[in-house]
């Protein structure tokens, strides 16, 4: 994490996570039926309201669907401050988006994903307030079906390093029920902390934060818009 007095990244009411230091990357884990990915997208999208950038790497969802989801989760979401690396394999054709969108034909091309991510990051960084950009990667589980664990770890670590060096915030999702503990722990080494998500009655879910200082590690309910 980058040193210095810069204020951390804050989150909307209803999501009980205290401000996270700039340069951090969090692994957001939860089973497929929980709202893990929605939570991660909310955490990444909410900054556009205050002129931060939001950059997504979307593996299974098209750019169009992702933007719709962000608008549903965050009514104040400003797509003009967003960028998407669309790895869904869908042909974008002549589609036009309010956000900056770059596509990649296969999820196995980690070099291509990384370079398009870096290119979009530069663009968003230049226009974002104080260069603040939040990155949402959904999901590492999907990428793991195309590349081996070592390559995926290297990719996640490289992204995390870029986010750290630029004073950004990273949110990488993973479904731990589809991986063994060794995989989850290895990928966890590329992040500074973890947000664990589980289903809960009467709320959109419950979360707890692990590995970050000055955060409660108790399970607490959260609500999304």
């Amino acid at each position, binding site marked *: 994490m980058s040193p210095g007095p810069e204020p951390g990244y804050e989150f909307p009411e209803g999501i009980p996570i205290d401000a996270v230091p700039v340069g951090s990357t969090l692994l957001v884990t939860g089973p497929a039926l929980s709202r893990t990915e929605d939570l991660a997208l909310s955490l990444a999208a909410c900054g556009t309201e205050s002129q931060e950038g939001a950059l997504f790497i979307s593996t299974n969802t098209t750019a169009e669907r992702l933007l719709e989801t962000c608008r549903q989760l965050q009514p104040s979401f400003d797509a003009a401050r967003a960028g998407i690396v669309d790895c869904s394999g869908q042909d974008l054709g002549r589609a036009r988006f309010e956000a900056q969108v*770059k596509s990649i*034909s*296969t999820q*196995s*091309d*980690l*070099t*291509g994903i*990384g*370079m*398009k991510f*870096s*290119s979009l990051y*530069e663009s968003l*960084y*230049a226009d974002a307030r104080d*260069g603040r950009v939040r990155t949402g990667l959904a999901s590492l589980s999907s990428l793991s079906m195309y*590349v*081996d*664990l*070592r*390559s995926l*770890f*290297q*990719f996640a*670590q*490289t992204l*995390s*390093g*870029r986010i*750290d*060096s*630029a004073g950004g915030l990273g949110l990488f999702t993973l479904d731990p029920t589809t*991986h*063994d503990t*060794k*995989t989850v722990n*290895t990928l966890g*080494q*590329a992040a500074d902390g973890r947000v664990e998500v589980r289903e809960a009655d009467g709320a959109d879910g419950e979360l707890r934060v692990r590995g970050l200082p000055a955060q409660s590690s108790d399970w607490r309910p959260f609500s999304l818009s």
Partner: protein
Amino acid sequence: MSTYRILCVDPDDADRAETAARIRSDLADLDPVVETAGSLADAEAALTPETAAIVTEYTLPDGTGFDLVRSTEDVCPDAGVVLYTDTDPETIDTSELRGALAEYVGKGSVFGADRLTQLIRTTVESRAQASYPLPQNETERVAALQSYDLDAPGLSASLNRVTDLAAEHFDVDIASINIISEHSQEFLACYGATQEWESMDREDSICTFTILEDDDVMTVEDVTTDPRFESRSEDLLEMGIQAYMGANLVTEAGLVIGPLCIYDDRPREFSSADEAYLKALAALAMDLIELYNRADAEDSGEWQR
């Protein structure tokens, strides 16, 4: 930690000189060794195992930056590569580089040079493009390792007796004590076929994962089904390694310098009693290293054989 070696590759003399000067200036606190090259051939000749980062244009007179990434994998696999280029990333065919990574910074971006040096700093300090995780106390760990005289007279023979005990107890053909240095794994003592093994890059080492274990012991029942090693399992099987157990050698300050390991050529389960026994032998090996070094320091010769 060793001095960071950073290589700047750009066919444009002015750009190359400017980039190198910027790195020297912005990273002056790291006191890096900054080298330059104007072609792929010159860059490849300048690579060393200690090279920590390469900053390269994509288009080179005799190849591309991606060719250099591939050369880097052979010579300095832990090094990070940053394409610092005028070339539009949309025009670069990245599919040819699957399995390897390179960062991208556009020369024309509004914050190019600033971001470049920030990125290089993160890349070299956290080894951001390495394919294996680092312990959080890696700097202290390596410093602790370097503080020991591992060539102390008699130490090797004593440690070999520990690997003999391990091999005999677990009825395996290979056992070793491995040191995990900054970029490689070295064999400090061994029983069996490891005497023929040479040092290996850290990214190829199972033990580089063992040193991360909170309880200081790691078991792998079958490398062909373990997600951390399955992509390298063919090479491991050729070395006679299908199952593995390693227990860490931990200094008095709690820093891990490497593990004591046993290897089996068949899949194998390990019990908690197995783990406890190997940990006891690892503690014995660490005690021997501490004692030999203490004796060495006191120059008494009492412990030397």
